[in-house]
């Protein structure tokens, strides 16, 4: 790493996402003298104490209002619950901090629009933590699509689902008033961002989900359509479903396991499938020119590279991979999906249960 003045970082929200995902990268960057964690903000003293073990010089405050102004803070990681992101991001930006905010940037597109204005007004970086932009598999798929290897009229199918395993400290993600929705907000932000990145602008044509009464969706299926591609996106956080991205066009077909970082599979028309190595690399150091580049091998590596990109954006004004504009587009699509949500067909249930699931669907309940 080059000789820069260490960036003083505030961490707003000290929950599982920081401890489980960001901590190794932050410690690594701190060891290299690139950044210093100087401020921890969380309502829970216990959570702050756990992080303070790694950043003993950091001050701890329980309320973000007391956190700013705090002299000498250059940047902030906002990892509080999504419903608080707007307040926390805007406060940090207004104080003059560059901000890396965990996804989703906010729970409504109008909030994101306001946040973007604040970032612009204060000429600060606002980057969204969208780690999948560093997945070598998705980068390889993007390269194939960019090279038009699949040809025209691309159809895709993307499924992603497993049983939720995050060690969360509250049930906020499972309530509409605090989480903004269910799996579509949680995983959907990631997957929609990836699909829009890969296949270009698309809109939600149809949304089916399984929430009833005051529940939030545990499963959803969206149909998306755009100029160059159309397909379905299906998500679950309560069961193991097949996990893959498949796409086919007039010239070829690809199948991608997003979590397989070494290869994707491709075939031209009806020829046999072949593996294509993932070769994308991202800057892994802070030199302004010809930085060292690296290919991530684990999810933790992706987070590290995301931090390096954030630091490079702060230092050199490089464009952020996902900012307010991309987050706005994704959130707008989620809002469209929710506004038009219909009951998810579940033919394996008894006829009585299927009828009840349709009658109790949350949209119908909400419109009552």
């Amino acid at each position, binding site marked *: 790493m080059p000789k820069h003045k260490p960036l003083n970082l505030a961490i707003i929200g000290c929950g599982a996402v920081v*401890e*489980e*995902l960001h*901590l*190794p990268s932050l410690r690594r960057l701190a060891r290299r003298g690139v950044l210093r964690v100087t401020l921890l903000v969380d309502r829970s003293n216990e959570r702050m104490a756990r992080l303070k073990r790694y950043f003993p010089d950091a001050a701890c405050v329980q309320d973000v209002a007391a956190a700013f102004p705090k002299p000498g803070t250059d940047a902030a990681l906002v990892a509080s619950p999504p419903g608080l992101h707007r307040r926390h991001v805007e406060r940090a930006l207004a104080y003059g901090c560059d901000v890396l905010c965990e996804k989703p940037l906010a729970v409504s597109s109008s909030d994101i629009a306001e946040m973007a204005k604040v970032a612009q007004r204060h000429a600060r970086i606002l980057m969204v933590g969208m780690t999948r932009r560093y997945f070598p598999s998705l980068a390889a798929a993007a390269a194939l699509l960019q090279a038009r290897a699949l040809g025209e009229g691309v159809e895709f*199918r993307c*499924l992603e*689902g497993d*049983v*939720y395993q*995050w*060690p*969360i*400290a*509250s*049930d906020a993600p*499972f*309530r509409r008033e605090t989480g903004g929705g*269910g799996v579509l907000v949680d995983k959907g932000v990631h997957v929609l961002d990836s699909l829009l990145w890969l296949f270009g602008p698309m809109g939600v044509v149809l949304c089916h989900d*399984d*929430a*009833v*009464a005051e*529940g*939030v*969706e*545990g499963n959803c299926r969206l149909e998306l359509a755009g100029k160059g591609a159309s397909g379905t996106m*299906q998500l*679950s*956080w*309560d*069961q*193991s*479903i*097949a996990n*893959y991205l498949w796409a086919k066009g007039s010239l070829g077909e690809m*199948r991608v396991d997003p979590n397989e970082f*070494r*290869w994707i*599979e491709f075939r031209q028309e009806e020829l*046999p*499938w*072949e*593996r*294509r*190595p*993932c070769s994308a690399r991202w800057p892994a150091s802070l030199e302004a020119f010809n930085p060292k580049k690296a290919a991530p*091998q*684990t*999810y*933790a590596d992706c987070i590290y590279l995301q931090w390096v990109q954030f630091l490079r954006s702060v230092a050199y004004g490089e464009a952020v991979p996902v900012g307010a504009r991309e987050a706005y587009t994704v959130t707008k699509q989620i809002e469209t999906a929710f506004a038009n949500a219909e009951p998810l*067909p*579940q*033919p*394996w*249930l008894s006829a*009585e*249960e299927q009828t*009840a699931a349709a009658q*109790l669907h949350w949209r119908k309940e909400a419109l009552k």
Partner: protein
Amino acid sequence: MKRIAILGAGGFVGARFVEFATLTGEFDVVPVIRSFKSAARLARFGQCWHRADAGRIEELRPAIAGCDAVVNLTLGDFDGLPAAALAIWDACAAEQVPLLVHLSSAEVFGRVEDPNLHDDSPLLARHWMAYARGKAAAELALRGRFEDQRVACVILRPGLIWGPRSPWVAGPASQMAAGKAFLFGGGRGICNLFYLDNLMHSIVGVIESGTRESGCYNVADNETTTWFDYYQALARELGVEFSTIHQLQAQQYRVGLLDRVEGLRQTALGKRLKSALSKSAKQRIKRAVSLLRKTPPTSGPVPRSFPQVTRSDWHLQNTCHKLPTAKFAKAFGDLNRYSFDDAMVRTGQWLNFAGFANLRLQP
């Protein structure tokens, strides 16, 4: 309307109970979970859930107060199962809940090798599987309370619980799609299946019967199904050529890396390490373990897949006999609403929904 507390409501069986109760209104359900993350499976119902550790009576009591029955579906640390089972029984007694239905496992006998096995046969105390040892120990602990009339305890022992969302469906389906599925000895071993909804209706039937008798009962689907039958039906629903399923000799098994890792995970040291390691540390260990294996080619033709056999697969697929269930039928009647064929149609519909059907990942 009966009020039933479901302990372990965040599991796939528990969530099915909550789904059924929410959609049919046949009974009033009280979902009880230990950690917030378990609420993910319940979030879509908009139900209120209670948080309680099954091993802590003082946490359980407010959750089960006023219930007609408690169904114990919890599965935490295997070594802690007996203590948790007793704590649940004590909480029922303290809150005057008259019936506890405890879900055990047919694996408490080991695989069914004795044709004369019956519901009250001795349990296999030294099973190689930590899960089965824990289940057997929990049963023995609860049997010590059978004479106490305050709470009737009905212990049910299903084999493999299958159907929509079941790991016993999603697992083979993924393997078949990837060309990694396998059968030992032509699949002639008995697959002791119990369809999820048959299990649910059996539990509801026990509760509806108003029994005040404690007892242990084996439970299973009515049909005798071999692994061949099961895999053939799954393959049909998935649109997979049955001939792509690898055929292995019945004795063709040796302890592999996965078994060694699983064995280490179940030791006291392994458990302590697992809870102490961060997510990224676990990722790095997984990565290091994967590097020990032969590096697969990253370019060129997609190579042929091979099965990854575990001791558990080998053990289960070599089962000799069907689990006898006459005692349950005599006490409560035949509560199995779904035949194997009906259940497989519904499972096929779920496989299609879950993206497994017509997904051929092999070259």
